């Protein structure tokens, strides 16, 4: 087991290295660098000025050197003034070093956000915290509801409850966040006026029922149907097992059988599904945060991508890839832990 986890962690490192290299390559394409230079200078800057800016801030160093600097295996160089020879920091707004040092991901330095004019860590981690709050409430609503729907539907396969709940869960899997968001906003904000159609105040004044229900609902609904369907399939399978028949035949009540015998075994498969939902939730986070103007991770990612803020975008991709890979690992380990029949080789 230990060796398995270790090998998976090694694979994770390799994947992260490859993916960040790809992202690094993509954000450093010539059109993207031009976009960055334009967004940092005023729009009328000439071609030569842009080139000058890119050259001065070290964007013209060899590709692998810059990637190494970002990782932290190559020293970051300050800007040397060619006439005086005095060294100045590349970006003064996030206290870059004035002498060459190793300062990259390995040293815990995520770099410098050119869009927000601050250190990436100062922007990224509060945003992650905000998204964590959102995710927490989404999970708190989504998981119990979807498990309940799945268990109720799978309990008696083919019954009317099963059919109507199945159609309902298919419907929710057909409503992506930008669709359910619009429908909920129309119903609850424009029409009934019960809820706030924007979560902007949640960032400033804190989360409350009035401004946070719509984003949470919108995000939860897309995943609910999927988890419910998986739970239903697992429940249906368990209900046909011999030991359920035995329990019924020895005279236990139906509800007793469901709660004591079926439920525990039926909930193993949905666990994996819930863990693997995280990558999908990441996309949902981006849509919901943009739609409801909530300043979290997704909002930051869009801002970073829209302005080609290289270090921030790299930080975002590192975080999201890390989340995806570690949930995969947790789901594999947890599955083996929950289900003794599965032995991890």
């Amino acid at each position, binding site marked *: 087991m230990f060796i398995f986890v270790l090998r998976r962690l090694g694979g994770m490192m390799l*994947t992260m290295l*490859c*993916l960040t290299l*790809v*992202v690094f390559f*993509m*954000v450093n*394409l*010539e*059109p*993207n660098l*031009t*976009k960055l230079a334009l967004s940092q200078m005023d729009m009328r800057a000439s071609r030569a000025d842009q080139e000058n800016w890119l050259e001065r801030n070290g964007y013209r160093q060899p590709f692998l050197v810059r990637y190494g600097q970002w990782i932290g295996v190559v020293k970051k160089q300050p800007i040397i003034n060619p006439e005086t020879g005095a060294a100045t920091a590349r970006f003064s707004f996030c206290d870059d070093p004035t002498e060459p040092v190793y300062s990259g991901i390995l040293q815990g330095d995520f770099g410098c956000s050119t869009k927000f004019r601050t250190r990436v860590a100062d922007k990224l981690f509060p945003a992650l915290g905000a998204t964590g709050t959102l995710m927490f409430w989404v999970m708190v609503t989504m998981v119990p509801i979807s498990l309940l729907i799945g268990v109720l539907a799978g309990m008696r396969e083919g019954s009317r409850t099963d059919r109507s709940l*199945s*159609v309902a869960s*298919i*419907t929710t*899997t*057909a*409503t*992506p966040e*930008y*669709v359910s*968001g*619009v*429908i909920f*906003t*129309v119903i609850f*904000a*424009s*029409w009934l006026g019960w809820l706030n*159609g924007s979560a902007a105040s949640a960032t400033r004044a804190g989360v409350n029922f009035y401004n946070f229900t719509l984003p949470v609902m919108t995000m939860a609904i897309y995943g609910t149907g999927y988890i419910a369907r998986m739970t239903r399939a697992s429940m249906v399978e368990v209900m046909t097992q011999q030991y359920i028949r035995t329990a019924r035949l020895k005279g236990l009540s139906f509800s007793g059988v469901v709660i004591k015998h079926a439920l525990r075994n039926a909930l193993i498969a949905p666990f994996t599904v819930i863990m693997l939902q995280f*990558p999908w939730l*990441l*996309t949902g986070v*981006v*849509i919901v945060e*943009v*739609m409801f103007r909530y300043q979290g991770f*997704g909002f930051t*990612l*869009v801002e970073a*991508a*829209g302005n080609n803020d290289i270090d921030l975008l790299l930080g*975002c*991709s590192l975080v*999201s*890839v890390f989340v*995806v*890979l570690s949930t995969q690992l947790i789901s594999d380990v947890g599955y083996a832990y929950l289900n003794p029949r599965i032995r991890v080789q």
Partner: protein
Amino acid sequence: MQLEYVGAFQIVLGIIARFWPVWLALAIIVVPSFAYRARLGLYGQLFDTGVGITGVLVCLFWLFTAIFSARIAPFDPLDQIVVMKNALPGAMVPDDGGVFLLGGDKLARDVFSRMVYGSRIVLIIAPTATAFALMVGITLGLPAGYYGGRIDSFLSFLANLVLAFPVILLFYLLVTPGIMDTPIPYGMAGLFFLFPIIFFGALFYTRFKGRPQLLLLQLAVTFVIGGWVYAGLVFNADPLGLISIRPNELNIFVAVVFASSPGVFRIVRGLVMDIKTRDYVAAAQTRGETPWYIMLWEVLPNARGPLIVDACLRIGYTTILLGTLGYFGLGLAPESPDWGTAIKDSSRLLRSHIHPALPPVFALMSFVLGLNLLADALREQSLKD
């Protein structure tokens, strides 16, 4: 200027009347299908359940809407009639007699016509992108599942790389306007569009190796048609001028194929690993058939059930991806009538006007729902056998 309105009842009637070619086509297709459903195999069995009928009807409805959109839509999707800005549903166009059945949007365009034309964009890109993703996934998944070992580890690693990327980040990196100045989208398109040619070439070659004349004909047809489409799509140099694609559409297309082919790959790989332990595969191996013959003619036909179900779900998922692209304003032109872009434009103004937001929202939802119901019915039927 005061606009005149028609009543709610007339709006409903008007919409139903505008869709007349769709109703006609639906009747022509569905009535015989229903009558002869016992003899139509898997397709006929769909008509046995309510879920299946609903799925087929909704999918066909949008298919015919896309085909006849020029006839259904009363206005051009890009036409702006200034007085109709943010007009409510049922507003009549002054001195023209036309009615904005579902109102006008913030740029004074007819919401109904835009929704109808939007279906055309979605129904062209989503199924074709899914088809290409299937080709890529199948061509790579077959050897990965059949041979296992190094090929499998390598291809699975690549697939997991793509799957570990959050879709939205992938889109922001791959579908920015700037990237069309670089050779990346064209290179990727060149790579992806090779797969159908390879697939069909291998398909015919393995089966008809012993009959050179027939093989030659089939290979010639494959390469001529494949090369023609390839030239049109990748190099935008179709000699006949029939197939052309705008750079931004190619870009979207490539990104969507790239994002969804690893999923197909994983499914195909799993299916092949399961099927290759069957007796008929062992029999074919004993006969001395080549590995690719076994993969393409023994394993693949027996994996078709789950693949068809997956294809249905995947078209729906691709539609959602397209909507996401539109919602973030990536790739598609800002005035494009597709549903995602329409949702983006209207969702910012929900406080003042809700009517431009609802038609594209329900269109997208119903189409994806139809596909999901269809997939569900197909799955039920294939489990029965």
